[in-house]
């Protein structure tokens, strides 16, 4: 339960951060949520990762659908993803997720080190 709440809150805070701040505010978001909802290392990483991964995947998927894949196909070609827009959505989500995961992991270490 904690795990799922952490994922949802990470996604939510990262989204709000993205409205007002540069993209890397997602790291701060994941860090804060992980501080507020203490979890062990692996779980902390995974909830940070999944929170951002899901946020970015859903946003990218939605934008791509509204755009009828016009741009994603071109960018997927430039980034050597064979012009496949779904790979691009996955890569997008993975990149965001990775940062979110490590930020969340850092916070979990910080909490346990303060004990």
């Amino acid at each position: 339960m904690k795990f799922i709440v952490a994922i949802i809150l990470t996604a939510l805070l990262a989204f709000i951060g993205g409205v007002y701040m540069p993209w890397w505010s997602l790291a701060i978001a994941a860090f804060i949520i992980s501080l507020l909802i203490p979890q062990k290392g692996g779980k902390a990483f995974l909830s940070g990762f999944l929170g951002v991964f899901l946020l970015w995947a859903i946003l990218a998927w939605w934008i791509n659908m509204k755009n009828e894949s016009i741009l994603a196909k071109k960018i997927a070609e430039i980034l050597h993803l064979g012009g496949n827009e779904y790979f691009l959505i996955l890569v997008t989500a993975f990149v965001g997720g990775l940062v979110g995961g490590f930020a969340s992991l850092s916070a979990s270490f910080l909490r346990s080190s303060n004990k």
Partner: protein
Amino acid sequence: MRIVPFVISTVITAGLVVTLNKKWGPLPPLGKFLSPQQGFWQNAEATDHNFSADLKISGLKGRVEVYFDDRLVPHIFADNDEDLYFAQGYIHAKFRLWQMEFQTFAASGRISEHLGNDPRFINYDRETRRLGMVYAAENALKVIEADPSTKSGCDAYTAGVNAYIQSLTYATMPLEYKLLDYKPENWSNLKIALFLKQMSRTLAGFENDLAYTNMKSAFSFKDFMVLDKQVPDSLEPIVPKGTKFDSPGIVPIQPASADSLYFSKKESINIAETGKPDPNNGSNNWAVSGKKTQSGAPILCNDPHLELTFPSIWYEMQLNSPTVNVYGATFPGSPNVIIGYNDSIAFGFTNAQRDVKDYYEIKFKDDSKQEYWYNGKWERTNIRVEQIKVRGAKTVLDTVAYTVFGPVMYDKSFSTDLSKGKALAVRWVAHDPSNEGLMWFYLDRAKNYDDYYKAIQVFQCPGQNMLFASKSGEIAIWQQAKFPARWYGQGLFVMPGEDSSYQWQGYIPQKENPHVINPERGFIVSANQRPVDSTYPYFIPGNYITMRGLTITRRLEGMEHITPEDMMKLQYDYYNTFAEEARPLLMKYIRENDLNADGKKYLDMVKNWDLQAGPYSTGQTVFTTWWDSLMVVVFQDELDQVHPEGVMPESQTLLEALLKDSTFKYIDNINTPQKETLFDDVTAAFQKSVPILQQEEKDDKLQWTKHQDPTIYHILKSITAFAKEGIPVGGDGDIINATTHSHGPSWRMIVQLSSKTEAFGVFPGGESGNPGSKFYDNFVDKWAKGEYYTLWMMQRSEAKDKRVRWVITMHDE
């Protein structure tokens, strides 16, 4: 004790953020770029995007309404001219900002600043600056800002562009900035001037002076002039043959030393020119008077041929204020409508192709370039130190000396192949102070011939054939610019620069520029051909193209009751007049019995060809390969004597020489003991073509469109994902539909000036410059098929018309 893992994990997180926020080689900063809330995803415009908005912008005097129709063409209605140009700048920037800015970087030698440390970019920037592009724009800016109407128009336009730039966030920035990772800087009036200078460079920057100078080592001046034929036999000039010209107002005198110091001086110049304009840059325009049309009203047609790019160089729009109501193609980066029509007249342009750029050899006192020998003493140069910023590397400094002729473009420090320490200064009309933009300000508002004639007076460069038609039934054309009056042969080669005797002695008086007003035959044609026959009293070298003018003239001669639909067909026409004249000659001299089975098959393709250079023609491919090969067989042996290289004559020149004389002296291959005949050359040329054609056939490229592979590239050519390749069109540079691999009709317009104007147009692109918009390339298919959109000159009262899809209103706080 988790301090250590905390530190490690935090460092990894921070490292990831920093890494993903930075550009690595060709890769954009991935974190920034991929973020759905800010990165490229934000440029993926929803296909049902709502462009409507209500904008509060400080600085506007009144209210502006911008109505967008279903093709996203804006119709701007403003209460006064300043607001009109403000809105034009804003809208240009909203849809084309990256292109506008990048074009001015290209014009001012600043591409390395953003594209990076590559010798090609740095070389381009150096050459651009050494040509004096920024110097030219600065000179123009002084005149622009001295004229109240252009000053206020440009100020307003610039303010409009900047208002848009200031509204941008990273998320809303054009895609290319995100890909290349830089930000737009503020717009300025200088950038408007730079943009127009870039047009001069494209259209009036072509000459072969350096290569021609090399050719003097192998060809006598007399022989050279046979190859650089000034008046082709099949020329149909703009001014109908036989028209009587006034006696010249200026007669330039050849310097006494010309024979020894200029014409017969043998030298070679080892300079590799990097940024030569495409010799195919040109255009068609023609107008037919009411007596030849079905409606009784004149029709004006124009299709400028330029490099076809995404975003297109053109942006379609309507501008309306109490002083003007005009519709047509605009240049993002410059105010006004450039090719279009208003309620009284229509106007269009083709390039004059005249040579207005010459080189002078400078003798510097020493390598400091501080002094040069001129009129018997050492004169001081003006030194301009160019600072070329290079992304990711040190700024490159380049010292350019300015002389009485202009900037010393080539010297020891640029193009190191230069032989014997030669320094060459460039004299170019585009350097002279002028205000071309003012012409369009006037033209957009012109009501009749007198207004048009007054408008074109201010125009100096690049030389254009300025076509005019009016509702009152007049048609006219002027070839307008500031053209040097040359003595015979002046400026074909590099000239001595040690005194003033080889300088231009004056300019052709404007009234003597070639022109046609309401001609008897009822039509006017310009298509980059030489504008006049041999009786024109001036020497006017240029990079002319003969065949399109001839084809159009023949067609119009035979047409009556012309409708706009007829004109659409003519702009799309594929007929190859050159082949019509050349094929019988080739057929006469080919030794058919020498050919193998494949050879015979290809020969049949030419024999049975309908002379249409359509997309699926194989005859056009075989013919072109054969002719190109013949050019090499005939001339390459002589050109090989020129070091480093000479210039292949025009196809037209060879054809006309062979039609008159089947023993033309260059037919013989000087490297063989025997004397070749035309039979030998024509057959050898064909035999050389056979393996090329076999390979083409194997690769399925025998059809003309597959052979040419018509492609519209993004301005950043290497990003092929933004290009459209393999567009199924035919055509060629000397065919009316002048489409080649990446070049061709960049805007087709037809305007019938009947009581209610009927206008049609199309360009190969779309209104949006955003590769993520469905309006990026949505006109291309229609353009490729030769179809047109009906152009809508909207009335203010039509705000509720169903064609209006979106509205942007702008007003002060």
